[in-house]
């Protein structure tokens, strides 16, 4: 290599530049596959820690406001969990950014939203495919298109995105949701376990 370096300084620098560019591109490609990173335990740890802090804040807030409704608190927890998930996503995806911005919007319209969401909590959760709406409009999109549009509504922030964008967002969103479920279940178990054991004789809770 040294000889070649000496003899072909130009080509060598070019080659090294090429290699560096390729390596950088590969790394970028790997990093772009964010949905893989959600499976890493590190991500789960980060999320869990952040979620814990958020939950503590929620507790304080709820205790301060004396909100005794389980649904409301549950909603708060849910929102906190989603927000933490979006933060963990570092805002690289549309759904994470939409969640974060939605929270901001909701803060301004908190009371209205709470009433509306509480009222519409039940039926809204069912998430029936709204084919009827499309028929009213007179459009009969192909089945795939319809489903993709529906999926876009499921994923936050992807209502009016084109098809490939929705699919990409769905990939990352599904991975993130899986991680969220894992973390929350673990956290819930731990919390419940610790509280349960703490109540009787703390066996799992290590001494501080």
């Amino acid at each position, binding site marked *: 290599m040294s000889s070649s370096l000496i*003899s072909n300084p*130009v080509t060598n*620098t070019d080659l090294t530049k090429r290699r560096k560019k390729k390596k950088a591109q590969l790394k970028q490609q790997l990093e772009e596959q964010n949905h893989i990173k959600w499976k890493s*335990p590190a991500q789960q740890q980060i999320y869990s820690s952040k979620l814990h802090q958020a939950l503590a804040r929620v507790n304080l807030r709820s205790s301060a406001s004396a909100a005794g409704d389980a649904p409301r608190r549950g909603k708060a927890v849910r929102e906190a969990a989603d927000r933490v998930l979006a933060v963990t996503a570092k805002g690289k995806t549309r759904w994470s950014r939409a969640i974060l911005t939605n929270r901001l919007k909701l803060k301004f319209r908190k009371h209205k939203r709470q009433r509306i969401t509480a009222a519409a909590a039940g039926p809204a*959760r069912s998430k029936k495919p709204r084919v009827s709406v499309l028929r009213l409009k007179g459009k009969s999109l192909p089945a795939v298109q319809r*489903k993709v549009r529906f999926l876009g509504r499921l994923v936050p922030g992807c209502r009016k995105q084109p098809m490939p964008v929705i699919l990409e967002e769905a990939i990352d969103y599904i991975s993130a949701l899986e991680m969220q479920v894992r973390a929350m279940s673990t*956290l819930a*178990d731990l919390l419940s376990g610790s509280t349960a054991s703490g109540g009787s004789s703390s*066996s799992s809770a290590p001494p501080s």
Partner: protein
Amino acid sequence: MENDFFLNGSALHFEPPSSSSPSLPTWHYLSSAAMDIPVSSDQPQQQQQDCFYNPSWEKSTIDHNHHHHALQFDSALSSMVSSPAASNSNLSNDNFVIRELIGKLGSIGNAGEISSYMNGNNNSTNTSCYSTPLSSPPKLNIPPPLMKDKLPMALNSSVAEFSADPGFAERAAKFSCFGSRSFNGRSSRQVGINNNADFTQRSSPLMENGKLSRVSSSPSLKALGSQMENKNSPLNSQEESTISEQNPNGESGVKPSPPDMNSRKRKTSSKGKPKENPPKAAEANEDSSAKRSKPNEGEGHENGQVKGEEESKGGNNNGGDEKQSKSSNSKPPEPPKDYIHVRARRGQATDSHSLAERVRREKISERMKLLQDLVPGCNKVTGKALMLDEIINYVQSLQRQVEFLSMKLSSVNTRLDVSIDNLISKDIFQSNNSLAHQAAIFPLDSSATAFFGPNPAIHNTIPNGTVNHPMESLDSALCQSLGFQLPSMNGFNEGASQYPMTFCEEDLHAIVQMGFGQTENRKTPTQSPSYNGSSQISHMKVEL
């Protein structure tokens, strides 16, 4: 013939450098002595090769002795060098003739003094056309001042520069090789056959590049006039630039040039290019110009002075212009814009619309494949519509799970104290760590199955209708995560009575009571298969 010329040349040597006006004739004589082509400004019949020399030779023979071949040859050469071409037109012819003469001189070579002289000063023969030989003996130092009188100033400067650069000697030698092609045998004397071969190989491809680069390199040259002028003047400027730039590595630079060719064409990095390209371009141009008419040479020499001033500029310009020329010559392989270039496959439509459509379809199918890997149970399904159904169901189930867990957490949080939070945070980290390591390994304990008790209640809370298959993988993960914790919560049963208090939800009350009532749940093994993995997991979650 050559011998005759040589003899005549030797005779010509006797022409004293003292001849001022006849310096041209001497010059011509010398050149003619070495070469076949007559070069004479005196006589109008310049194109005639043979008859040209004869009178001059005759004169020389008459006038001079034959003894001091070498000395007088040197002197003659110097005078020839020093004496400017009679006229520009003559110069042009002379240059051409001289080139050929030099080329033949090299081929002659056998002549003792001349060969030695030539060997000693490889470039002297070549440079003699243009300027004083580089390593010329001191005698030749005299001519340069004489040159100023006769040659154009450009030539003087060029000569001075030429003399300054030993590398030019080599290059000039190569040039002569180009011109005559008879130098191949003599290449050993010069830099090396390799270079010649390289040059010859590269000459043609280089010529274009070189020419174009030359054309574009020096705008001042273009202003001078004809295209030939421009081409040759850049050549000279290139030569001068190379000379002034002192390319001792010119040879080494030249040798690796072939591999650099492609790289240079591809890349516009100007590192080393100004140095490497000028010699190549110079050689290429030399080659081309050698074959071409000579007048440009003279004009080039005239412009050489200007070029000399523009050496640095030329060098710099060459880098940029070569880039331009090379980019223009070699169609850049990379697209200038960030377009994804698609090539139509065999047997497929080449319409732009269809190509774009194909790209779009490929993108979508690629994403669908990723989704298929992500969503459990999609492997069995084929077709986009069905897969999308599965995906939608999976997303919905995940969102429901999150909601359920959030409710659970909220209920658990109500009983949380700040101190416990600190403890839990540590637990979380530890558990997560342990989970990460053991999740894949830890099997479900029987105790875990014990918690699968009450199913119907959970069924109510979690609609399982459409969530059968997609949850399996997730359930396994959860099972593993929970399974790990289960042993640590064996004290659980003891505290089970507290659970109805912790879970405020009506369903959970019934579930917990039912679940803990059964230490051994025979039902669960039988029931578990009937259940969807999700339901099982949810049971576990509830009970815990």
